[in-house]
């Protein structure tokens, strides 16, 4: 998959959340999207997956302009937003079964069981999602995207709710997506983890890209930029 973002802008009323963003994402890219609160990280993720209509600019996937909500391209795009996108009064298994059907995937009970087991939720497959903690909901979201195998996986601040094994599960999954030729974009404030995981970092500030660089060793520039633009308390949480 090859994703091109050209002069992407998004305004909410008179406030510009994104200003003329230019990006190119290629197969295998694992991108950390960093920036302080209000930098436009979540807005960019929502625009990339077609949930938000850009005010200006365009997004092209494999040379095709990504119109707002194109059903044809969407099996390839996933948004992992912890705690979101799950029906509370459906069980974990029913949620996965529903989304498999909506994504035109053949229902396979064994496959669902394996995904739940991988997410550490085997014992909870018959429980309503309403009874889940935030971390368990995040694990179920990971299980969902394990099953649906998107080519572009967008992750919105996943570290806040996961325990140690949950973080391992998530990072293993993200690495596997990239290894299989997919693209991962992770918006987070946990710079240390993001820098360790990703192959490229993009820093946003007030809707503009102020830093975009592939990973280096040593990577002094990212620490300098993050130190400059992000409050220290957020930037170095690990």
């Amino acid at each position, binding site marked *: 998959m090859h994703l091109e973002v050209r002069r992407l802008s998004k305004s909410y009323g008179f406030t510009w959340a994104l200003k003329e963003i230019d990006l190119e994402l290629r197969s295998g890219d694992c991108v950390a999207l960093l920036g302080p609160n209000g930098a436009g990280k979540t807005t960019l993720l929502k625009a990339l997956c077609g*949930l938000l209509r850009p005010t200006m600019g365009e997004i092209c996937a494999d040379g095709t302009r990504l119109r707002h909500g194109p*059903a*044809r391209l*969407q099996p390839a795009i996933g948004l992992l*937003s912890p705690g*979101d996108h*799950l029906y*509370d*009064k459906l069980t974990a298994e029913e949620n996965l079964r529903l989304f498999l059907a909506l994504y035109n995937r053949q229902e396979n009970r064994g496959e669902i069981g394996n995904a739940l087991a991988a997410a550490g939720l085997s014992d909870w497959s018959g429980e309503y999602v309403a009874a889940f903690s935030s971390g368990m909901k995040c694990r179920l979201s990971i299980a969902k995207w394990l099953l649906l195998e998107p080519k572009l996986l967008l992750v919105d601040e996943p570290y806040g709710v996961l325990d140690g094994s949950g973080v391992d599960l998530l990072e293993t999954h993200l690495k596997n997506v990239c290894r299989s030729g997919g693209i991962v974009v992770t918006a987070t404030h946990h710079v240390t983890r993001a820098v360790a995981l990703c192959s490229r970092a993009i820093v946003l500030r007030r809707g503009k890209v102020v830093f975009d660089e592939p990973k280096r060793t040593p990577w002094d520039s990212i620490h300098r930029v993050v130190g400059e633009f992000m409050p220290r308390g957020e930037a170095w949480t690990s």
Partner: protein
Amino acid sequence: MDFLRQTAWLVWKDLLLELRRRESLLAMFFFGVLLLFIFQFALDLQPERAAEMAPGLVWLALVFCGTLGLMQLFQPERENHCLDALLLSPIDRAAIFLSKVFFNLILMVLLEIVVLPLFWVLFNVGAWDRLPSVFLYGLLGTVGFCVVGTLFSALTLSARGREILLPLLLLPLLIPVVLATIRGMEIMLRAGDFSESLPWMHLLIGFDVIFATAGILVFEWVVES
């Protein structure tokens, strides 16, 4: 086939959630029965005038109950941003619209199955043999109500004060449906003659088809903007 399969899955999801949440149907049912009893106490309806008044009163109750159900129609999608999850999935937006229309229709038909006979008994309407044809008009009117109601329920999804806004927008648009249904029901109840009520049936079918088509076409724009 995929379209129908996905629509069926979404209807199954809504029915399962309603079965577990019991938010819409119970409220609609109790409100409907309550309204009938209020009408019974408030109006001293003579049996000879019952046939004349019955369609209007029944439909008033059904529209109020239905509006109550429409308020809750997208509630599961409002929680946990599940509407985003649906929009993110590769399903035709028309499948989401039609699934909600079908789900709403199922609730309304269940309600009518209870409310109509109850009204007949309470107001001593008689003419039980004409109840199926009256029900047919009720069904055509219900389809129109569900189609327009679903569209406006989605339109006011993120609006502030949607509980006020929804009936204000919806009820004026429903005037042709309410009028045609009531007139059709009344003719069937009075004369039992389909040919006399045919113009109202045509109006109802036309309304249903036009708004169902419009809903399918504009729903994508409504939910995504």
